[in-house]
């Protein structure tokens, strides 16, 4: 109550001074109780402006400061630093927002100045009552859990491990590689996808600081930035990783044939399998769902008989592990809209309607056709192909409103590779707009159009009609203004990218936000693109939104550098403005526990306890407490009431 308060009023050029009478405001502020000094300046946030505040603090022996300027979200840090360097506790700074809340939204009348004065008065009342607060220091666990073993997860894991910190790389599937492992060549350079991915997979698998968990899921995340406890559930592989030599003797012995997921159902695998020849770890997996041994009774053990190192173990059980980590990287990747989504294109009626990833498998040397393009229905080489872009993308009515970003480029690549493989084949690309915004991308599309003479037709395809073993494509050339009907052997849909299955459950467990399309939300779309809205959890790759490989790698490297930035501190310094419990008043009703949006409050021996790193000081617990036993520091009842009273008069 006895703080000596200084008031500093900013003109903000003309932003404030145009509608607020700053001189009248300064005079009124100078006369307020507790105010020892009031002054105005053209730009308080400038270096001379900050210097002015520092000088006045020393001269006038001030111990609390009110800055009447712009929104506190803009310059709280600036002014806190300024007052701190002059010896005033940074939590004895108050900001009266007379720009966004006053000068910008009102005309230049006396009432506007009157309102600005009320805001300043309110700030002064708070400043008079403020107490010094000290930041909270928290220890830091220097290890990371990276969820998702695609190129994003691999890149983030490698960058972090290379800097010397242990990483747990958690992959849901049996092997690393993700979507990129499924691709044949990559645009625009036509690098072989596995040739550039395999070295990275090998590097991460041999890195002494990386622990790889395949067939594993994160089932629970406790704690907060710097100190997460992550529960990893390991599904049984039924093959002992240390024993398996990767000889593959088990495969011919297995009688069960099932469609291979890695080949998008275009090829077959056995119930014991390895999805692709470069798989890391190179350990076979027994898929018990399709194995003849469904229960505890073993009715077929041909694989176990064939296995010389005796690496097959039908009795493996799921296991759980609790890992301590200071940060988490979510790199859970993407899926594509299923073909069954497109009834007008009738994949359920015709097997020769496939999606882009299936075409990648047809192009891939390790794919079901060993890189020969053969259509699924009769295994003939298609003599004509129609590529349909924007299948589900840019379609807010029945698909996704967003552009999937990669389809224009991979369709151009598909057309080029097909044209090289089948030079007399006919290609029709139905597109709406070509979006080739990356480095070397437009040049690539230009090459496909001009040098390879690929036929681009501007117009969306309405439907496909099976006709004598072919597919009739109903399209339009909107540039000619004429309908187009062509018969083709194969149709490839550039289906929309969607978030991976299970992302919602993981987002719930990790307490991160997801957007309307199901992708993970970044903290700020422009300025914080690799941070989630939950501190200590970072995003990498297509889990956050559609992007191509180079953008994914850059995004993952960005997430890794954020983790390393966090780890470069000796300890975490947290804002002290978090909830505090008056244990003498707390009745242990646990109502605050249920309202806390950050799960920061728990009950210990009948008293509420606040986790200092989880609490964000939102104040939701304050009105929930019947006994007035808790609330955020720096927002005490007497301070808030004094502020309201000052506004009301």
């Amino acid at each position: 109550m006895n703080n000596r308060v200084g008031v500093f009023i900013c003109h903000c050029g003309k932003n404030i001074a145009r509608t607020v009478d700053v001189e009248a405001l300064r005079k009124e502020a100078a006369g307020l109780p507790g105010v020892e000094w009031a002054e105005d300046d053209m730009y308080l946030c400038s270096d001379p402006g900050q210097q002015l505040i520092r000088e006045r603090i020393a001269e006038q022996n001030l111990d609390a400061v009110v800055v009447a300027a712009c929104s506190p979200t803009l310059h709280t840090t600036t002014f806190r630093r300024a007052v701190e360097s002059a010896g005033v506790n940074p939590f004895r700074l108050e900001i009266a927002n007379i720009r966004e809340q006053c000068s910008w939204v009102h005309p230049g009348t006396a009432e506007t100045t009157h309102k600005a004065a009320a805001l300043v008065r309110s700030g002064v009342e708070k400043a008079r009552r403020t107490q010094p607060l000290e930041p909270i220091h928290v220890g830091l666990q220097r290890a990371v859990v990276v969820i998702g073993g695609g190129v994003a997860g691999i890149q983030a894991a490698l960058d972090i491990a290379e800097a010397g910190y242990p990483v747990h790389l958690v992959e849901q599937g049996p092997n690393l590689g993700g979507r990129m492992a499924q691709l044949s060549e990559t645009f625009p350079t036509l690098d072989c996808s596995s040739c550039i991915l395999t070295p990275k997979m090998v590097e991460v698998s041999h890195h002494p600081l990386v622990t790889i968990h395949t067939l594993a899921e994160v089932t629970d995340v406790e704690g907060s930035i710097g100190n997460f406890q992550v529960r990893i559930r390991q599904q049984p592989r039924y093959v002992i990783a240390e024993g398996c030599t990767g000889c593959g003797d088990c495969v011919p012995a297995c009688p069960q044939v099932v469609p291979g997921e890695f080949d998008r159902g275009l090829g077959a695998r056995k119930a014991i399998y390895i999805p692709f020849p470069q798989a890391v770890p190179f350990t076979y997996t027994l898929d018990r769902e399709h194995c003849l041994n469904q229960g505890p009774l073993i009715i077929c053990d041909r694989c176990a008989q064939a296995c010389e190192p005796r690496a097959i173990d039908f009795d493996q059980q799921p296991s759980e592990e609790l890992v301590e980590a200071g940060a988490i990287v979510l790199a859970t990747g993407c899926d594509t809209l299923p073909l069954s989504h497109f009834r007008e294109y009738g994949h359920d009626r015709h097997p020769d309607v496939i999606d882009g990833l299936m075409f990648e498998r047809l192009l891939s040397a390790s794919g079901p056709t060993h890189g020969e393009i053969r259509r699924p229905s009769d295994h003939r080489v298609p003599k004509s192909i129609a590529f349909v872009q924007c299948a589900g993308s840019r379609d807010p009515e029945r698909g996704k409103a967003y552009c999937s970003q990669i389809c224009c480029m991979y369709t151009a690549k598909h057309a080029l590779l097909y044209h090289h493989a089948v030079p007399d084949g006919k290609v029709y690309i139905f597109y709406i707009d070509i979006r080739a915004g990356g480095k070397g991308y437009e040049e690539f599309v230009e090459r496909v159009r001009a040098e390879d003479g690929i036929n681009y037709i501007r117009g969306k395809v309405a439907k496909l009609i099976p006709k004598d073993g072919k597919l009739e494509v109903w399209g339009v050339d909107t540039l000619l203004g004429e309908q187009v009907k062509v018969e083709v052997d194969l149709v490839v849909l550039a289906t929309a990218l969607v978030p991976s299955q299970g992302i919602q459950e993981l987002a719930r467990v990790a307490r991160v936000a997801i957007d309307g399309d199901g992708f993970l939300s970044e903290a700020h779309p422009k300025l914080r693109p690799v941070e989630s809205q939950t501190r200590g959890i970072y995003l990498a790759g297509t889990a956050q939104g559609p992007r191509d490989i180079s953008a994914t790698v850059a995004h993952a490297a960005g997430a890794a550098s954020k983790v390393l930035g966090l780890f470069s501190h000796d300890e975490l310094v947290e804002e002290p403005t978090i909830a505090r419990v008056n244990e003498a008043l707390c009745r242990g009703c646990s109502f605050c526990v249920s309202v806390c949006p950050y799960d920061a409050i728990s009950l210990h021996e009948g008293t509420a306890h606040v986790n200092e790193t989880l609490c964000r000081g939102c104040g939701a617990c304050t009105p929930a407490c019947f006994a007035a036993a808790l609330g955020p520091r720096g927002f005490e009842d007497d301070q808030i009431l004094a502020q309201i009273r000052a506004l009301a008069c």
Partner: protein
Amino acid sequence: MKTSMGSGSTRIPLRQQVEELCEQSIGTCYQCGNCSSGCPMGPWMDALPNQLIRRLQLGLEDTTRFASPWVCASCFACGVRCPKGIDVPRVMEALRVVGLRSGEDHIGPHTIEKKRLSQLPQIALVAHMRKATG
């Protein structure tokens, strides 16, 4: 009381008329052409549905001179496929209404011979009349 008259035209622009009549947002269309791709009457149209919408987007007042809205079978194939949710048949209907209100006579049953009139399918004729009466 004195009434002062403006000197500008009191005529409402075509795009605005159509948008008010069909309650569809013409500007939403991004010209993917899906409406035209699947239109069974396309071969008989002098401008495809997406072209009519393009003309409306540009505010071309002569868009009513095309016969396409009268060729439209109102089968709704375009409307159900439009990725932007534009009910294209209603746009066509609006263009027909604007055409009729302008007083242009597209059908003229009185010009058809009596003998031929008796041979015409009644449903088609009634549909004709409906179009003619707006």
